[in-house]
């Protein structure tokens, strides 16, 4: 029992990391329908910005906030300088997947050429370990879980209650109708990219804090598990992303405790396959067909 409970505790931390990333990934995807495989590169980029600040003596949490804002800016620039022009040039849904994967390959290797093949770690004490029932979590873990809860609630509230959020939902259902109704499409799309980039930044730094060592490909490697979580939940749904993150996070960590820890990501994949066999559109998604890209 104790093993199980502490594994669930680790699962919550993994789920928190996954939730931050999956909500950001899926929010942008639902608005623009661009499958942004360079999301992981934004995570890594932000993670290294935070590393630079942290090495310079800044507190890691402050560095995280600044890096997240940088992530947002990078993400907006990526859309306005690269993806947007490609979409207006006539590149379709699948062409855009190739565009984003090319972007990921280029950015990851630019980072790698800059920092080298070695592993890095932040200068951040993980804090006193706190016992709660059989959970064993550090202050860092709890902060990251708190960030994840805040990010997902804020996103959900914004989507439900604010004008911008409603515009985003409108865009994700029918882009041309939204445009015809006077929704400033370009601005809303840019905002979606910014929000997604901020979450990539937060998720990237949080991931790097938790993994304690990181390299130029850590972000993109984590993106694969993030995608699994987002797809399980039903891509495009923020609620689904959180649920997917919880399922994947807890299943993988509990599996790691009882089975081979090296194989924990295989469990994520098993969950993905089972869910997709039963419900091909994911748990929460309504759409069973793909739509056109929005730039």
């Amino acid at each position, binding site marked *: 029992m104790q093993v199980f409970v502490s594994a669930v505790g680790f699962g919550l931390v993994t789920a928190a990391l996954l939730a931050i990333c999956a909500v950001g990934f899926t929010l942008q995807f639902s608005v623009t329908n661009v499958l942004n495989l360079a999301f992981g590169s934004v995570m890594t980029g932000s993670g290294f910005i935070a590393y630079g600040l942290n090495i310079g003596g800044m507190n890691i949490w402050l560095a995280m906030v600044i890096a997240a804002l940088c992530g947002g800016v990078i993400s907006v620039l990526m859309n306005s300088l690269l993806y947007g022009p490609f979409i207006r040039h006539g*590149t379709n849904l699948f062409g855009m997947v190739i565009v984003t994967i090319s972007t990921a390959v280029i950015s*990851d290797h630019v980072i790698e050429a800059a920092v080298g093949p070695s592993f890095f770690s932040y200068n951040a004490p993980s804090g006193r370990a706190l016992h709660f029932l059989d959970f064993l979590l550090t202050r860092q873990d709890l902060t990251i879980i708190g960030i994840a809860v805040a990010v997902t609630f804020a996103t959900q509230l914004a989507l439900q209650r604010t004008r911008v959020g409603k515009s985003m939902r409108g865009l994700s259902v029918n882009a041309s109708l939204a445009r015809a109704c006077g929704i400033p499409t370009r601005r809303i799309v840019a905002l979606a990219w910014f929000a997604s980039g901020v979450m990539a930044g937060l998720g990237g730094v949080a991931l790097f804090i938790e993994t304690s060592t990181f390299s130029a490909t850590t972000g993109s490697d984590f993106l694969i598990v993030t995608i699994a979580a987002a797809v399980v939940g039903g891509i495009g749904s923020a609620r689904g992303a959180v649920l997917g993150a919880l399922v994947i996070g807890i299943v993988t960590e509990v599996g790691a405790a009882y089975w*081979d820890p090296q194989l924990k990501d295989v469990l994520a*994949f098993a969950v993905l396959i089972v869910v*997709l066999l039963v419900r091909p559109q994911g748990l929460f998604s309504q759409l069973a067909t793909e739509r056109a890209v929005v730039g």
Partner: protein
Amino acid sequence: MSAATQYYTITIVVYVCANVIAAWGLDLQFGVTGVLNFAFIIFQAVGAYTAGVLSLGPSSSSGGFQTYLFGANLPFPLPIIGATLAGGALAAVVGLITLRRLRSDYQAMVMLVVSVVATIVVTAETGLFNGAAGLSLIPNPMQGIAGLSRQTQSWIFTAFCVALMIAIGAVMYAIVYSPHGRVLRAVRENEHALEALGRSATRARIEVFVIGGALAGLSGALLVEFIGAWAPNGWLYPETFVFFTAVIVGGRGSVAGVAIGAALIGVGIQQAVQYMPIGSDPTVLAAVEWIITGALTLVFLWARPQGLLPERRRRFARSVDVAPR
């Protein structure tokens, strides 16, 4: 030719042949039919591993040096045939799970996950193919020919690769430009119209998935028989991207174009990087290789999405004459 030049030539030719064969496999899937197989590299890997264990002999004979499944000592063409079948069989399994009910953007994402999981499993389960260290000391397939130097044996293997590539090229032409090839292109262009005509797009997708997987397996076998080793580091998921670039640069759906693309991207860039004034740090060299590959993809998608040698568009004469008024 000096021995070194000969070795260099042989290496380049074998790599080009293997890359071209694999790129044709992906071209059938992505170029002609429009299936985004981001797990393509695992089918090359399964081919390489199969050919490896079928030539190495039983695992116990290595004296605990490496462990792997099965293990047989089959004569020359059999490991390569086995590898081709293994590539096709794995593709059938993966294809039947992923290609039937999923939205095509989900298919692409699931393939990425499949590719990563395959790497994790092969690395962690050392009993499969010797884990992260991989298989090594796979014997030269032509060593059975007595009385010939190693060099001559390599030349014979090279000739075999070239002949195989030409034969497969002929088959590719036969598939792509046949009536069935039109069905495949219709899946890419307008799946709903095709289904309205009573053809199954899913069936066509699974078909090219299996053929492409078999070609990937074959290419892996050629590589492993030549290199003599194969490990998970050589088939990480980004490697698939190189083949996508080859297809895009060469020309989606164009058999000759993709062959040129595969030679340029798979082998050309690597050779070109060696002569660039960027030092000799292996990390930087590899990174520059990847950056060039990614940038070329973007440049081609923007400026010449049809590729270097575009797919031939068949035009039909108007079959119905407009009645004179």
